[in-house]
């Protein structure tokens, strides 16, 4: 088998990816690409990052055998890759540490980021506090409403939150505004993109920083099971936690890989975020990839109960992996995710974020009474604290009582 080698030097995953931005940003992206290539070979950078991973984030995150859930499913042995135990409660910090070290190296003095669920915003605000950077977070006003705990955390960490009122007032619009900020402040600003989306080199860079998840998981499973897993499962918003887990396994043909998207009220309805199930190739935020769009190429508004998956696009590498059929993608509805959210909490004593609850729901649904003697690793990429209010409301529990 050919070894997997993507993207190309100009940021193409097959035909997907690329750099579709205005001329004001082009020189910056080329510069970023150059700097990123340089630090990849820099031993000191690697050491500094690994040190932070170990002592600041608490890596490696554990690989937990979810015995009770496995029994409930009555199918495969399920392992959780527990990135929800990371400092700040999700995988997002892995990428933020990598990018802030790069920003420092490049001599930038101001950090901006977009956020949906607020996890990436919190992680960015955290690394900015640690390294003493002023931090500006763009967040849709709808997300500010449904992810209040994270809004307060960002404020405590010293970040300025800029509410975004345009479009669907969620992740897509926050990213538009962050890009506009960057165009205005090209000289001093570093934009920390939170997912494997956006123009090259972001999809590659974010994947590389997140692939610590998959590297660890691979070592850990070989130790306990003496073999590679049969399945990997992760939720896909922009696709960073999924790429982080998947990437180190892409050459292992026997490992079946599944990405789970948010289908909202159903992948066939207008209220969905299932980009690869319901979308078509197009250009959004500087990259050619699957998007939800109408016949004229106008980008549609996405819908998901989970703010982190509420995005009408997806990273270009996922589009490529879908088209070459290396990864299969499925949609899970709000309702199914909410149910899995509760099942996991009760059975394993772990309250997952609504994002990985989608991956959990798929696992429970598709593996029930099937695939016995198989081994599954599921990326439990975030914890549910941020979602308590949203979930309580959706389940019909009065949190104020």
């Amino acid at each position, binding site marked *: 088998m050919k070894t997997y080698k993507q993207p190309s030097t*100009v940021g193409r995953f097959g035909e997907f990816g*690329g*750099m*579709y*931005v*205005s*001329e*004001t*940003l*082009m*020189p*910056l992206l080329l510069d970023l690409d150059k700097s990123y290539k340089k630090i990849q070979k820099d031993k000191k950078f690697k050491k500094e990052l690994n040190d932070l991973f170990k002592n600041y984030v608490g890596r490696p995150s554990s690989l937990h055998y979810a015995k009770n859930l496995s029994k409930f499913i009555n199918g495969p042995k399920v392992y959780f890759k527990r990135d929800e135990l990371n400092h700040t409660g999700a995988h997002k910090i892995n990428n933020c540490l990598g990018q802030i070290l790069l920003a420092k190296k490049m001599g930038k003095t101001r950090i901006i980021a977009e956020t949906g669920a607020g996890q990436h915003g919190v992680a960015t605000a955290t690394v900015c506090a640690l390294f003493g950077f002023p931090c500006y977070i763009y967040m849709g006003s709808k997300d500010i409403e449904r992810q209040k705990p994270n809004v307060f955390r960002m404020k405590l960490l010293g970040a300025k939150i800029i509410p975004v009122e*345009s*479009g669907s007032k969620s992740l*897509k619009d926050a990213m*538009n505004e962050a*890009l*506009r900020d960057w*165009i*205005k*402040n*090209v*000289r001093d600003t570093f934009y920390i993109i939170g997912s494997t989306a956006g123009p090259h080199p972001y999809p590659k860079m974010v994947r590389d920083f997140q692939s610590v998840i998959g590297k660890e998981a691979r070592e850990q499973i070989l130790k306990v099971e003496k073999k590679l897993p049969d399945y990997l499962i992760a939720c896909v918003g922009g696709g960073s936690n999924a790429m982080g887990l998947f990437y180190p396994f892409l050459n292992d043909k026997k490992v079946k890989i599944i990405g789970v998207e948010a289908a909202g009220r159903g992948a066939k309805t207008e209220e969905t975020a299932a980009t690869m199930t319901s979308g078509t190739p*197009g*250009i*959004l*935020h*500087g990259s050619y990839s699957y998007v939800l*769009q109408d*016949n*004229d*190429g*106008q*980008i549609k508004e996405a819908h998901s109960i989970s703010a982190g998956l509420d995005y009408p696009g997806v990273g270009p590498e996922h589009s490529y992996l879908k088209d070459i059929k290396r990864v299969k993608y499925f949609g899970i509805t709000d309702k199914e995710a909410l149910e899995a959210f509760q099942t996991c909490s009760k059975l394993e004593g772990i309250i997952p974020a609504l994002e990985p609850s989608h991956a959990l729901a798929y696992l429970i649904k598709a593996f029930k009474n099937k695939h016995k003697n198989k081994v599954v690793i599921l990326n439990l990429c975030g914890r549910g604290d941020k979602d308590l209010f949203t979930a309580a409301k959706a389940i019909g529990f009065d949190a104020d009582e």
Partner: protein
Amino acid sequence: MNNLDSLPKKKILSLFMTCGFPTLNQSKKVFNEMLSHQPDIIEFGLPFSDPMADGPIIQEANKLALRSKLSTQQSLNLIKELSKSKNNTSFVIMCYLNTVRKFGLNKFIKNIKSIVDGIIIVDLPFEEEDAIKKSLSKNNIHLIKLISPMTDKKRSKKLLKNSKGFIYYISATGITGSNKLDYKEINKNVKSIKKMSSVPVLVGFGIKSKKDVIDISKKTNADGVVIGSALIQKYFDIKMDFNKYLKSLKKFIQEVKI
């Protein structure tokens, strides 16, 4: 024939307006008003849901235009209809790549051939332009190049090779409608562009008033200006009273024609 090949030597005026703004019918009247002043260039903005490089004013214009689900075909039809009274004015389309891609490049060109003289695709960088540029050039439509203050000399040289029509110099690092104009920097960069290319250089992004237009003409080596957000802003200034808008548009265009 391509009108862009016979632009005047100095004080070129290019007016930008979003198609379908505020409504499709009113948009026709807006463009007719603009055309009646015979500006050198009219730029037709095709509305896009996610205009990444545009400021709040043009964003709002896009949003209003898309309210009634304006299609790409309707915009192109509007341009075609207006071209009957085009005379010497050059027609230029300004849009985002996804609009062209989804419509189909060949079909797009078929619709604008012999009507439109140039096209600016905001998010199509030099690195990705080859195939599109070739098809356009076969049909005598110029692909207009943007140069920003961030574009260094080496890159400018590559971008400007074989440039046609005019060069759009982004006066401020920023989105459309930004306001700080640094004449020294503009002049320095425009001069450097003119050394590498013989087509006119227009300055855009942030030109708001007669004074700005005169200053660009006096203090820099640029061959003209592009005015966009300021034309749209007038609509919001007079609280969206359309008849008053047409009048204030007329007055403003008369002012900036120096």
